[in-house]
């Protein structure tokens, strides 16, 4: 199932966590495509399952969690059936991940050069240290860090530099997909803005795809080509960045966009105040998980879960307001 357009296809993915208070479905029946060369923004609040989805995409879910079902297709390869050693090779080689906190992801007693060289040599057994170092030097300069800093330890670098080293670790093997999980969240706005510029430039230069996982919806508007919105373990809306921000369809997306303060002075002062809080996933609401907070909830919403319906080309909405009636009966029956 190799597709020209899609680099990664997630189909009906479900991830469960087994907790003391019972099974928790962190990601439920999620389908999502990551196109070649795009920056896809995955946005949602804490606990919505966005990080779990990112980890599941690398098959890195650990106990007490488990991928309970679904398919993962990366560039025509069925990751769900891939043996663990091949999967390990693929992580880093083809897909790499940038985490939120570079301080805990970098080894404090290893120099920056060792991080990079070790990554290269682990994945490319034949590469000599000298040429690995050469590559590390080139890459780090490309990211705007002087190559003499390769001799430094992580604590000697600033937060922004450390984050760029993390990106470097993702790029050094020429990955096709970078999963950035809240990669800019701990950074100050100016440093964050520079990192955003850098990620865009890297995408343009290397033509790779980036899955940008964040809670910051404004950041998504700044960087993403397409956006997927997640709520309580479900993808509730997918569309181009212009679709989502110009014409949000799902009441959650609408509420979120209207409740976020902006620095623009011309905008109305009043913010939308969304009632309630995100649900506890050990005991999620019935039907559509957003219905208790939804201003447009109907009787059906608390009864049955809607499908993630394609309302127009490439535009998906998980909401009863947009369900085709013919499909509705079919889904309910199923």
């Amino acid at each position, binding site marked *: 199932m190799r597709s020209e357009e899609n680099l990664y296809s997630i189909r009906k993915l479900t991830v469960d966590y087994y907790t003391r208070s019972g099974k928790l479905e962190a990601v439920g029946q999620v389908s999502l495509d990551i196109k070649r060369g795009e920056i896809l923004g995955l946005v949602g609040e804490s606990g919505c399952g966005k990080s779990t989805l990112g980890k599941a995409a690398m098959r890195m879910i650990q106990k007490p969690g488990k991928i309970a079902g679904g398919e993962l297709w990366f560039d025509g390869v069925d990751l769900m059936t891939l043996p663990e050693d091949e999967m390990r090779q693929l992580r880093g080689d083809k897909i790499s991940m940038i985490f939120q906190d570079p301080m805990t992801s970098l080894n404090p007693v290893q120099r920056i050069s060792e991080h990079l060289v070790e990554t290269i040599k682990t994945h490319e057994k034949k590469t000599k240290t000298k040429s690995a170092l050469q590559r590390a030097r080139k890459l780090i300069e490309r990211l705007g860090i002087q190559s003499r800093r390769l001799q430094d330890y992580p604590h000697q670098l600033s937060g922004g530099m450390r984050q760029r080293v993390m990106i470097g670790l993702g790029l050094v093997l020429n990955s096709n997909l970078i999963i950035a999980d809240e990669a800019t969240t701990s950074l100050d706005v*100016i440093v964050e*803005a520079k990192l955003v*510029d850098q990620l865009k430039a890297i995408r343009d230069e290397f033509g790779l795809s980036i899955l940008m996982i964040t809670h910051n919806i404004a950041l998504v508007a700044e960087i993403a080509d397409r956006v997927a919105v997640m709520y309580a373990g479900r993808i509730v809306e997918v569309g181009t960045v212009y679709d989502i*921000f110009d014409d949000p369809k799902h009441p959650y997306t609408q509420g*979120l966009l209207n*409740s976020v303060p902006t*620095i623009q002075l011309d905008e109305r002062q009043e*913010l939308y*105040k969304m009632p309630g809080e995100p649900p506890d996933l050990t005991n999620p609401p019935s039907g559509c998980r957003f219905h208790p907070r939804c201003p447009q909830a109907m009787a059906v919403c608390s009864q049955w879960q809607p499908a993630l319906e394609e309302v127009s080309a490439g535009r998906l909405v998980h909401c009863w307001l947009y369900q085709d009636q013919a499909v509705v009966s079919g889904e309910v029956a199923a």
Partner: protein
Amino acid sequence: MSDRTQQVEAKSGEDYLVEVRDLKKWFPLQGGFIDTLLGKNQTFVRAVEGVSFNIHRGEVFGLAGESGSGKTTIGRLVVGLETPTEGSVLLDGVDLAALSKEQVRKLRKRMQVMFQDPTASLNPRMTVGEAVGHGLKIHFPEKAAAHRDMVAEMLERVGLTPAGLYMDKYPHQISGGQRQRVVIARALVTMPALILADEPIAMADVSVRSLLLDLMLRLKQELNLTYLFITHDLATAKYICDRIGILYLGRMVEMGDLREVYANPLHPYTQALLAAVPVPDPHKRRTEQMPKGEIPNPINPPSGCRFHPRCPIAEARCSEEQPELRQLRPGHQVACHLAEQFLD
């Protein structure tokens, strides 16, 4: 209002709840044993380097800046959680440094704090009722009989209704948003005049933030509060603050009415900071270049204007002379030698 405050008003002509004058805070850096033997000079982290501002009664004054700008330290100095190295903080015209420890303790009920992380700032072994009532126990022991009613009233005010439902619950039994409200109730129960809110909603879920901000604004009106609101988020500041001060490396670089500062930022740093904030509109993506480098180390800050090594318009003078805050527009001060070029 006491005679004392009226006196101060008469003097300054303005009704200030808080006056901060030339505040400095240096934290000594722990040197190694060898350094001590060699008699090396003590080094300091210069967290706050001569900051002055006033907070009007009933306003929300924001302090914004990146990490390391000194905003949290200033907040802690204002409510007396730290002692200044130099300079003074006046509450209602009274210098905190001139008071005895006992008097400062008494003043505490007039200054309360809301911290960032509600889970960390609530004792897991105290029920909601105990946590909120704790301040009453300390500051109003004589009213012990009324404490439970006072706590209940405050819980209802912050939207935890009916209060009886929450009173005997422990922090882990309520949701994150509710914990946030408990922190607000706890700060308000002693009927303070000044609230230090240090990133109070940064940990809250995005979809509940606007509700909390709104609650804070409503309570301000109902209880005649004054807020010192500390944040790194300029968008949140826009929603809640009346005036704002922008900090860079322990210095105030710009200060004024919020709308005025946002509409006409006069300091190159403020301009960069405002430009860096992402806007939730893909049609308005940022095109501005960001300043080079990162915020320098406060142990050895740059000479002159602290922003000069990163500033796009810096001249020779900027590395020599430290600019002071000066008023360039009504209600708008800036500390930049070259800010005139941004006036028009």
